[in-house]
């Protein structure tokens, strides 16, 4: 049976945004958020409430949205992880990122990475969501700046552009 003792070094790997990353965990008590933000210096993933309520720490694990503040890194070793840093390809923004810019959906930007990743999960499975579906889907991502109006507009805009480019 797999086990790790406290403070014991364990080399684990993840495929982060398509790249193999190896990190040394010191014991099992590090969250995925800590590994991404501190060990891998990928601070695009944010951490705010640390209790599952704000969604700022959202990343995708095997394409599914996960709160990295409440996920033990050890439990997702070997998995494919997508963070906000992995969305733009070759300097070209993902249509959702572009839509957030065009709609003014990002003010301070602290909620933006989580919002965009959630929008991606939604649009990947439902290319033409209704306004209510968008609201339901983003219900776990708090934003204190925008009042959400422009975030919802951005998702609608992204749905449109993604449809027209056939993405």
């Amino acid at each position: 049976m797999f086990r790790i003792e406290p403070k014991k070094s364990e080399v684990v790997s993840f495929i982060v945004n398509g790249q193999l990353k190896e990190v040394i965990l010191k014991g099992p008590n590090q969250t995925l958020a800590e590994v991404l933000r501190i060990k891998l210096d990928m601070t695009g993933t944010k951490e705010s409430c640390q209790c599952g309520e704000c969604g700022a720490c959202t990343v995708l694990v095997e394409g599914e949205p996960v709160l990295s503040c409440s996920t033990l890194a050890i439990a997702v070793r070997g998995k494919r992880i997508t963070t906000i840093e992995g969305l733009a390809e070759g300097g070209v923004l993902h249509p959702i990122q572009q839509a957030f810019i065009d709609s003014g959906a990002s003010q301070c930007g602290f909620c933006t990475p989580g919002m965009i990743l959630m929008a991606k999960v939604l649009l990947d499975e439902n290319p033409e969501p209704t306004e209510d579906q968008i609201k339901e889907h983003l219900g776990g991502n708090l934003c204190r700046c925008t009042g959400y109006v422009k975030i919802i507009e951005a998702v609608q805009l992204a749905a449109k552009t993604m449809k027209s480019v056939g993405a």
Partner: protein
Amino acid sequence: MSSLHLKDFVYFEPTTTAEVTSLLAEHGAKARIMAGGIDLIPRMRAGSIKAEVVINIQKIPELSLFEYDPAKGFRFGAMVSLHTLDTCQELKKHFPIIQKAINQITSVQSKYMGTAVGNVCLATPASDVSPVLMVHDAELIIEGTQGVRTEKVADFYTAYYKTTLQQGEFVTGVSIPKVAEGTGAAFYNKVRTHADIAKITVAAVVNVQDGVFQDAKIALGAVAPVALRARSAEAVLQGQPISEELIQKAAEVAMNDGSPISDFRSNKEYRLDMIRVLVGRALNKAVNQAKGVQHV
């Protein structure tokens, strides 16, 4: 003391239920099961749970199984996510209030991670899931070093955050019996904001035959130290002809089944009032639905 980082613990990743029970038997109260971890990890960080041993049950394949059998009902394992249940068409069709209760709790992310069994095992009085399972007479499948036993969800809670689980035991799944003809169900809760834990939850399942309450089950959340069945209100209805007065009487009586307190989410008076209002609304809705079902 609350922390930014998790304290030390030993981590296990069993692949069979037998390994889980023997770990639990060995480590006793120092050990905690981790299903989705969405409740456990934040609580460990905040210091309200101290776990020296964490047993991750995510790698036990059989715990992720679920099935609907028209003859028996619905069964699902301890690692079936809230998301899977939320999007399961059979659950929605046959047990709509269970799907509804699950649908409206927490966020999409937490639904992908968290489990319904985790919600039940958390043993919070404010669970939205336990009341809907209780009114559907659901049973927990519990495995221990001594073997497997079952327990009704309605009998699972013994006191505030306490269950009948013994050292070495854990819940491997839930079984919900199929629903009889002429059954209607309703679920209501009250929250400060959508993502909040409920200040009160009410679930009701009634079976109506020839204008009479053949069976009525009512369960309440967040109005007592544990989620519970409103037995005295149920007794008012049992075998009686349906009328608005009877429903109102049961709703009044249900206030005695709860013993709410005041906290930062609500207060005692309001919770008592809402038992009455929501039990009344739930019964009316369930009855209408049961009648509708009968006519089909």
